[in-house]
Structure formats: structure tokens, C-alpha cells
């Protein structure tokens, strides 16, 4: 399987601030890769470097086999890129914008353009300044999908959009996902959880993990232990146990390297005999919060 995106020790420094710190990630062909993380983690910076809009301080990135610093016209005709803020001239009409874009892309598909406009409810005759935020986003996505791109890059596409528009964007995206690779940065974890195949978690410039969604879901568990008598906080706390808290006879923590036998044995080692142990699987939102709150711990 070829990597459609690959970064090697990708680093970006602004004066003293390390916006990206030695990021190594790989997006395989056909994947739907979600880059998530708190605000300011470096997600947009990563995307801008990949799209050759800004340069890295050190390290490399390769997109569709081309070094990111060498991305020019031809590569752009294979990439559908939708950034967070759409700066499209307000005076243009929907139809005119698409006509303008058409000429840049040899693979532009008029029929697909028509069907996307219909699917997204976008009137050709409307001026862009008269479009709502959601409609602008749909238009941007239509413009990025109509030429059958090999790679679709979306930076926070769902921000501030109502559920119907989100649904429409996701439907439009998924329909084309079968023939493309998708790289999407987003805070909308419940939405992307249902279709992302891979997840990367970026925090203050560092990629804390990057793996298949199924593997991630398999190793994270909320653990709840009901002790015999008062609960004891083990010392030291195993490194894979996050957010450990206790109250009355109950201890709770997030295990991020869950394996039933191993985890149960470790619990027995630290707590001895207990009344009950419960393992609860975690959705992406809960995993994100557990990771993000890690920094809060004293």
C-alpha cells in the first residue's frame, strides 16, 4: 500500500514556539485519516505545510509521491483542498465560480458537478455573498470533489454548521471517498468516528498517537474498580493509567493499553482482591478528553 501522505520529523518553529515537533505520520491510500487535537495543536499548520502554503522549519513531507515543497500545478489538480475559511469573491455567482475552476482541472466532470450542486441544493444563479456559511462550505466541497481528486484535504470543515449541512457534507464526502484518500482535521469527533479509518492525535505540536480506529478503540477502556473497604491509590501509578481518581470505595481511571488478561493482572497486583472490576469501551470523544486532560494533572 502506498502512502499518499508521509511526514518525516516534520517541525515548524515560530520564534520560540514549536508549532510542530518532529511529526511522523503516514496516510495510506484509500484511508480516511482524521487528525484531531485541541485548538492550537498544530493541525492547520500541518495541513498548510502539506499543501505547500507555508514551509517547514525542518523535516520533510511527501504528498502523492511529491515532496511538499515542490507541489505545483500538476499536484494541485489531483488534490481537493477545503480550508477552514473560504475566501471566495462574494460578487461571483455559484455557477461562475465553478466555471472558473473547471479550466484548471483536466479531470473535471460536468455531470458530477451538476449532481453535486443538486445534492447540495446550490443554485447556480446565487451570488456567493448571499450564501450562508453552510452553503459556502458545500460549494467549496463541490468545487473540490468535481474533478475526482486522488486526495481530499479538509481543514475543520464542520465548524459552526448545523446538523443538516454536516450530514450533507459527510454524505457528499463519503460518496467520493471510495475513489480517493481523505485527510480531515476536525473537532467533530462523534461525526468522524463513524467513518474515519485512522486517527492521529496532535497536541502542542506533538503527534501522541496515529493508528487505525479499531486499534485505538481496542486499547482504551474506562476502568471502574469497586474495592473491598476503602480504596487505595497505588503508588507509583502505572504509566498507562490516566486520570486516576478515587472516592469512597471506588477507583476510576482510563487504561490506554488495555489487554484483558494483562490489565486484570495489573489491577490485582496493585489492589489485591477487589469486589468488582468493570471495563467500559470509550468513544472517540471520551478518548480525546482523557488525552487532553492529561495535561491538567499536577
Amino acid at each position, binding site marked *: 500500500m502506498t502512502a499518499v501522505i508521509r511526514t518525516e520529523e516534520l517541525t515548524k518553529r515560530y520564534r520560540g514556539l514549536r508549532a510542530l515537533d518532529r511529526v511522523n505520520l503516514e496516510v495510506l491510500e484509500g484511508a480516511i485519516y482524521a487528525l484531531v487535537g485541541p485548538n492550537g495543536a498544530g493541525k492547520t499548520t500541518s495541513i498548510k505545510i502539506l499543501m505547500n502554503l507555508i514551509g517547514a522549519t525542518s523535516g520533510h513531507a511527501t504528498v502523492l509521491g511529491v515532496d511538499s515543497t515542490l507541489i505545483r500545478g500538476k499536484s494541485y489538480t489531483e488534490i481537493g483542498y477545503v480550508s477552514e475559511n473560504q475566501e471566495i469573491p462574494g460578487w461571483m455567482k455559484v455557477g461562475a465560480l465553478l466555471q472558473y475552476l473547471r479550466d484548471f482541472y483536466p479531470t473535471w466532470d460536468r455531470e458530477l458537478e451538476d449532481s453535486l450542486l443538486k445534492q447540495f441544493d446550490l443554485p447556480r444563479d446565487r451570488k456567493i455573498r448571499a450564501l450562508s456559511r453552510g452553503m459556502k462550505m458545500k460549494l467549496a466541497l463541490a468545487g473540490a470533489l468535481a474533478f475526482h481528486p486522488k486526495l481530499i484535504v479538509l481543514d475543520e470543515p464542520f465548524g459552526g454548521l448545523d446538523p443538516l449541512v454536516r450530514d450533507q457534507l459527510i454524505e457528499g464526502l463519503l460518496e467520493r*471517498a471510495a475513489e480517493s484518500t481523505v485527510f480531515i482535521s476536525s473537532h467533530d469527533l462523534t*461525526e468522524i468516528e463513524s*467513518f474515519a479509518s485512522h486517527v492521529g492525535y496532535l497536541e502542542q505540536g506533538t503527534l501522541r498517537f496515529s493508528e487505525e480506529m479499531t486499534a485505538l478503540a481496542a486499547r482504551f477502556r474506562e476502568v471502574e474498580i469497586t474495592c473491598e473497604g476503602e480504596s487505595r491509590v497505588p503508588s507509583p501509578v502505572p504509566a498507562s493509567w490516566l486520570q486516576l481518581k478515587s472516592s469512597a470505595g471506588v477507583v476510576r481511571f482510563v487504561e490506554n493499553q488495555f489487554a484483558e488478561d494483562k490489565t486484570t493482572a495489573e489491577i490485582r497486583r496493585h489492589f489485591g482482591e477487589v469486589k468488582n472490576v468493570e471495563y467500559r469501551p470509550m*468513544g472517540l470523544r471520551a478518548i480525546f478528553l482523557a488525552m487532553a486532560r492529561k495535561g491538567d494533572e499536577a
Partner: protein
Amino acid sequence: MIPFHVEFRPGATIYEQVVYAAKKAMMAGQLRPGDAFPSVRTLSRELKINPNTAHKVITHLVQSGLLEIRPGAGTLVANRPQASPAEKTQLLEEQVEQLVVESKRLGIDFEDLQDAVGQHWKRLKLRGTERT
């Protein structure tokens, strides 16, 4: 429209949950032999899942003999003998396990649990059918 309901919860993978929902639908008669099964595109679009996952679901159901591909007709629910009571019970395994675990946690004994189940069994009828 997809003629069965899928509610995604953390736990099993999306693939497992859709397969499970489809199997339940076949046993409950929502999907009958000869009915058209939703395409990869439809599954992906309506459930908002990765088309690869949708493809995996259908492949699995075809390989399990629950769906068959008829040239010209598409993917249809296969004509299969009725599921055995054991097979049907197996689909509810998770709920049964949960009930047993919770009962034990609360210190409910087996006889009391059986009584509770029996009471609900007598009281409830599926809307629109006669069944005990």
C-alpha cells in the same frame, strides 16, 4: 432507506455492529428472503460509514450465506432455513450477559431474576402480533 436500525455505541467495531443489526433484522423478518439488501453506497451514505466498512459488511454477509448476489438483480437476502433457537439466542448474548452481570452485582439471586423475566414475558406483547 435501510430497512433496519443501527445504533452505534462504543464497544464493538462499526463493522460488527452493522453485521449484527442486519442479522437481527433477518431474524425479525424485517429483511425477508428475496428482499434487496442496501448497496455499499446506500449503507455508507445513510449510516455515515466508510464505504470500505460497508463493503466489508456485505462481503461478510455474502460469505456467511445470508446474502446472495444475483446477476441483474443485485444483492438479495438469501433463502435460508429458519435460524435455530440457539442461533437466535446467541444474538442476544450481550444483553443476557449484561443482565446476569448487573443482577450479580446487586446480589439478586437466580430465582428472583427468573421471576422478574417471567413477569415481563407474561405482560408484554409485541405490538401488532399475538405472541406469548
